[in-house]
């Protein structure tokens, strides 16, 4: 399915089987966020998930990251049942969540310190990774010295240094201005083509979902259900500029918009 991966076959196989999540709220009323999600991600595939606000996208991500338990069903990463944080998972959130008292280098080293995997080689590894994400020479800067786009690149590096089999991204570019966002979208595709992680990319942007993904999963309003699982057959590497004139691209976008319109979301 995915046409990539010269270097590493690090992508993990991910399965959600009949996964539901109901929150117990403080008032005692249960809130069902996810309803019987079935999703299978092949190793190295890029899956984007779009859906209206509050439909349970972040919940699905938290479940995969092992941050909360599911109410029903089973999640597996490379065959192992997820019940706590899984070592093969790296996460990027909408907010960069950088530690302001650590330099860029220190921030990217954080997961290695937590996992007790920091070695003498780690320093050079981080510098190499920073170079790849376009942050060469910024290792000793503090987050407050960086722009929003650069900070999100650091957050991405912090996830990638863990060599995650599954990279989870929760609206990572939503807080960025349009131009910065476009640049990051294009660079993310290039990075992913090189690295070959399995990616679950949550977004509000239909265009970025279609541009980036092998598959776009569309969810219904809460409780979230998968209402469309759309295979995106556009060759890679894709071109952001011409994508918006490509009838194939526009057809996928229209198809997804139609569902949102039918749901009354758009």
């Amino acid at each position, binding site marked *: 399915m995915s046409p990539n991966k010269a270097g590493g076959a690090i992508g993990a196989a991910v399965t959600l089987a009949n996964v539901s999540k109901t929150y117990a709220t403080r008032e005692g009323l249960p809130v069902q966020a996810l309803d019987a999600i079935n999703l299978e991600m092949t190793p190295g595939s890029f899956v984007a998930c779009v859906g209206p606000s509050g439909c349970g996208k972040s919940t699905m991500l938290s479940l995969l*990251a092992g941050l909360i338990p599911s109410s029903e069903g089973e999640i597996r990463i490379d065959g192992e049942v997820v019940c706590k944080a899984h070592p093969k998972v790296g996460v990027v959130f909408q907010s960069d*969540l950088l530690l302001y008292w650590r330099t860029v280098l220190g921030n990217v080293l*954080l997961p290695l*310190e937590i996992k007790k995997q920091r070695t003498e080689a780690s320093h050079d590894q981080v510098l190499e990774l920073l170079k790849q994400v376009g942050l060469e020479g910024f290792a000793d800067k503090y987050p407050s010295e960086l722009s929003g786009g650069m900070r999100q690149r650091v957050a991405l590096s912090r996830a990638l240094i863990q060599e995650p089999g599954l990279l*989870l991204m929760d609206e990572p570019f939503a807080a960025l201005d349009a131009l910065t966002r476009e640049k990051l979208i294009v660079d993310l595709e290039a990075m992913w083509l090189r690295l070959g992680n399995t990616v679950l990319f949550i977004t509000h942007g239909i265009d970025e979902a279609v541009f980036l993904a092998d598959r776009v999963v569309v969810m219904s309003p809460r409780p979230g259900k998968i209402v469309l699982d759309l295979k995106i057959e556009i060759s890679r590497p894709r071109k952001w500029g011409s994508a918006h004139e490509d009838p194939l691209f526009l057809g996928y976008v229209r198809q997804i918009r139609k569902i949102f319109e039918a749901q009354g979301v758009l």
Partner: protein
Amino acid sequence: MARLFENSAATLLILTVLLVWQIAVIVSGISEFVLPSPLQIAIRLVEERWLLLSHAGVTAFEVLSGFLTSAVIGIPLALAIFYSPIFERAIYPVLVGMQTIPKIVLAPILVLYLGYGWAPKIVLAFLISFFPIVISTVVGLQSLDKGLVNLVRSMGATEAQIFFKIRLPAALPNIFGGFKVAISLAVIGAVIGEYIAADKGLGYLQLQANSQFDTTLNFAAVVVISSVGIGLYSILNWLESKVSFRRERAT
């Protein structure tokens, strides 16, 4: 406050005030015992340096003992309030409520129980500096972004790692903020304790000076009390710069 003196505009302002004061005293011919000039105070400071220093030692000891007791009891209590729902619901509201009681009014009672020595002063300094330390530490611990906790949890962090790698560093600016308020209040507590009943300390020296109509010595004591406060505050500032990264520093 250390920064205040690095700031040349502030230094200039202080010098101007002193100069105006000096000139006003000379021109008006006001008597020293009503209002001494800055120069007269300075001379007195030098002449009585050993007397002032020995009393300053007593006051500083009381301030530091009270403050350190507050920190040693306050920080663990703040941790208990943060980590235990029972402490949070039972003790924290009481503490916040008690912050509104002026602790100073306890001074005469403390003297009654603890006598004329340093004990009531230390207890007063402790009581007055305790609440800001506890409350700002709790606020600091609570200030951590929930998203950050989720992020490091996704990396498999243990509770201890969460505390030492992110929660404590994120709380340090608040903790030091509390320390700085507390140390200034501890000075007030100790000196007031000395006003009530004492046979040493800078507060006691002020009362002695008053009874002898020695206004200059009184002012000299004020200068030394302020210096004790500024000195302790500066130590905290220095300590903070060693262990904590201020968010503003890099911007």
